[in-house]
Every structure is written in C-alpha cells, then in structure tokens.
C-alpha cells in the first residue's frame, strides 16, 4: 500500500483584485470576473519565489507526516518559474529542509502539470520499494504579460506531498496519464512572458486532455463519476474546471472544497495539488478522491486516492489551505503589484 503520508501548502500574503488590473487596461472587470469565475489572485512578495514557497509548503507537509526529513529519498520540484535557468531548485529545498545529502532531486517542468508529474514519480518510486519516502512539490510564481488575459489569473502558491507506505492519509488506488503534442501555451528561452493560443487553450487543449484522462481512468478502474466523494481538476480560472466537471457528470458537492481559483488564481504547477490539499483538509475517512491535472503542451495526470482514518489525526498539525487563503491578507494597487513582479524597468 502506498500513498500520501503528509501534505502542506504555502500561499503568499499579497492579493490583487481583477478589477484593479482591469482598471489599468480599460477592461470590463465585471464581465471578466463573471465570465471566468475569477475575482482576485495571490501575488508573491519580492522575496518569495518557487524555492521559498516550496520550502514553506514542505515544512507543513513534514509537520503532518511527523517523520525525520532524512527518511526522504527523493525531492521533486515541479515549476515553470524555477529561480534559476541552470541550478536546481531541488537542492535548495532539500538543503533548507535538512534532507541532504543522501537524496535524489530533480526539477520538473510541464506548464501547469509539473506538480503532479513529481507526485506521479514519487508515488511510483515508493511503490516499487526503491525508497521509503519521497517528496513531491508543485510551486509557481507565474507571470502573465501586462494586459494579457493571463495577467488576471497567473498567481503564486505551492503544495507539497510526502509519499510513503506507513501512516498513510490517502492511499493511491490508481493513476492514468493522457498526453499529446498540443501547442496551446509556451515560453521560449529568455522570453519573460509566455504566449498562448487564446481560445485554442480551451476545447482542443484543456478539455480534450482532462476528458481523455478522466474517461480513461474511469474505464480502467470501473468507477463512475458518482462513486467519487471529491474531485479536483486543474484550475486555470474558475470557469474551466466547473464546466468540465458538469459535462463529465460530476456535481458541485464533489468539487466545492478543491476549487480555489476564484480567489487564489492559477498557481500553475501548484494549482490542482493545492486543490487536493484543500480537499484533504475537509474530507472524512474512507472517501474517494479524483485528482486530474492539466499542463499545456499538453497532458493530464489522473490519480484516484482513498482517504484513511489517519488523515483526521494529522490534518490539524499544520495550517489548512482556506486559512492561508483567507487570513492576514494585504491587497495591492497595480503600481505596487507591478513593482513586486518586476514589471517596472529601472536603469541598470
């Protein structure tokens, strides 16, 4: 038996409202919010990046798992905003957590799917007995070009999961991946902001891969949408996951805990993993959870988890996601936001 033995998240303190961004670019804030089910997003402080958010999330996961960090045999950090182009985030995180030196680390990148890539690898390494525990993190401080549609949603946050075989809080039942080469979103070397295919990011990209992964895992496991207590899809905004869930036969009660994007934004590699953490915060024991990520380029990873009684014992050992989302907030004006995100050019 393999599964999650500890989980944790980290969300920056700062927020900006959709209407504050829309005001600068002359956009219709009400139409944007209503159309995308998006109201505000998190913004990283100038001293936060994917490494610092990863460390914060992983410390919370360690607090819940209650293990010696040295038991962790692998650290995978999935992000599209690694602090360095060349120098691993995984070593920074491992050193800060006291896991070094007997550890395998890798930095993963697959747009918004890099977090679940790490989870997939970590779960299967532990399952095959290569190591006792493995840590997978999805973290991003994502960037949207000024005035672009992505600027309203690109946000920051991290989720960390420790996988193991003892004291499991959510047992892994099955996985399924669905990949094709689909050019819906990309960022070239040295480009500061990503480019995307506009409406092309919907049906042939997000929907096709989410639907493909869901239909395949339902067939593989012999389960139906109504069998699941909870559901988490990748959340590029608040509209796509709700629309896809309803079309696939799921209902609001199943996705209500995991849907964070309306007030968090899209934390890219952290997005669906943070939704899973928020669901674990509220789920009872012996409940079924379906997690399906999506990363542009493109692909989806699907996981079926079953919660255990141990979840109820450990979840209050670290802050819950909704508490991090709703407490100690500070709202920024666009000028402050532009400074925080390095959008203002200063002379060298």
């Amino acid at each position: 038996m393999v599964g999650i033995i500890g989980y944790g998240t980290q969300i920056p303190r700062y927020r900006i409202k959709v209407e504050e961004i829309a005001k600068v670019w002359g956009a219709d804030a009400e139409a944007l919010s209503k159309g995308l089910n998006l109201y505000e997003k998190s913004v990283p402080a100038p001293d936060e990046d994917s490494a610092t958010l990863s460390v914060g999330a992983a410390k919370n996961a360690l607090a819940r798992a209650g293990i010696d960090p040295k038991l962790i045999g692998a650290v995978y950090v999935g992000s599209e905003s690694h602090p360095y182009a060349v120098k691993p985030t995984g070593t920074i995180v491992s050193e800060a957590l006291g896991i070094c030196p007997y550890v395998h680390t890798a930095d993963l990148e697959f747009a918004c799917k890099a977090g679940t890539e790490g989870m997939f690898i970590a779960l299967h390494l532990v399952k095959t007995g290569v190591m006792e525990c493995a840590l997978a993190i999805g973290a991003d401080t994502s960037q949207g070009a000024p005035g672009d549609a992505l600027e309203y949603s690109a946000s920051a946050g991290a989720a960390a999961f420790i996988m193991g075989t003892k004291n499991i809080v959510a047992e892994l039942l099955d996985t399924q991946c669905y990949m094709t080469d689909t050019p819906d979103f990309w960022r070239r070397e040295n480009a500061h902001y990503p480019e995307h295919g506009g409406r092309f990011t919907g049906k042939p990209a997000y929907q096709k891969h989410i639907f493909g992964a869901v239909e395949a895992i339902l067939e593989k496991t012999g389960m139906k949408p109504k069998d699941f207590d909870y559901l988490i899809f990748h959340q590029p905004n608040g509209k796509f996951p709700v629309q896809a869930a309803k079309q696939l036969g799921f209902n609001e009660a199943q996705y209500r805990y995991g849907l964070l994007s309306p007030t968090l934004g899209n934390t890219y590699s952290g997005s669906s993993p943070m939704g899973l953490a928020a669901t674990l915060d509220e789920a009872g024991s012996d409940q079924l959870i379906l997690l399906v990520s999506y990363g542009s380029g493109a692909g989806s990873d699907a996981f079926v988890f079953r919660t255990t009684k141990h979840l109820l014992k450990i979840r209050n050992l670290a802050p819950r996601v909704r508490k991090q989302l709703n407490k100690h907030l500070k709202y920024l004006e666009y000028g402050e936001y532009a400074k925080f995100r390095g959008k203002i050019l200063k002379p060298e």
Partner: protein
Amino acid sequence: MNVPRHWRETPERYRMEAAKCRKCGKISFPARLICPACGNKVFDKINLSGKGKLLTYTIIRTAPEGFEDIAPYAVGIVEMEERVRVMGQITDCDLLNLKTGDKLISKFRRINEEGKTGLIMYAYKFVPDVGI
C-alpha cells in the same frame, strides 16, 4: 556577500542550525567551536524551532546597496523559544502595527541577489506568527 561565504553559512541561513553544548546545554547560534559558557568543544547540532518574540526593532528607510527596492523594512532582534537572540529582517508585516513582544516565526526567503545574473542568497526572515 561572496559565494563561498554564503555557501559556508548555509546551515544557519537555510535551516537555523545551532549548536547545543553537550556539557552545559547552552545553545549557540550560529554554531561555535568553543562553548562561551563552559569552554566545552563537543556539541550536538539542532535546528531552532523558528518561533520567537520580538525584543526590539528599527525601520530602515535609507537602505544599503541591494536593498533599496524593499525599503522601508524592519530589522529586529528576536528571542527564540530556545532563548537564543537572533537578528533578522521582519517581513510580511504592517510596519505601523509592529511592536515589541509580537510573536514571530521564521520563514525561508530571498535575502539578496548578486545582480540579475548572479547568485540568489536565501536565508531566514521573520514574519508575524498568525498560524499560517
């Protein structure tokens, strides 16, 4: 700060690694080679909990080179749970509401960087301990 020095100080900067004297139990942060209380030279490595109380602070409004963009910011002395006093930057706080006695907790943050192409320096900072 140069790269080798930053690397040498990784244990205390990244995870607040301290030294606990095996003879008298005094905790030194950063770690020392000789215990200032009893002169013993044998220590156990421990990581500070990160939790503490603000003893005193100042607001930096005219920042040194490399810190200009984050001014104004607070720097304070924090008494940790382990009764060790640590100086550090206090971030994610409202400067006007900061007061001595505030409960703080350490977070792993960026301290500085050697320009846009150089090394990024990470270390602990303190934030208000509001349970998140």
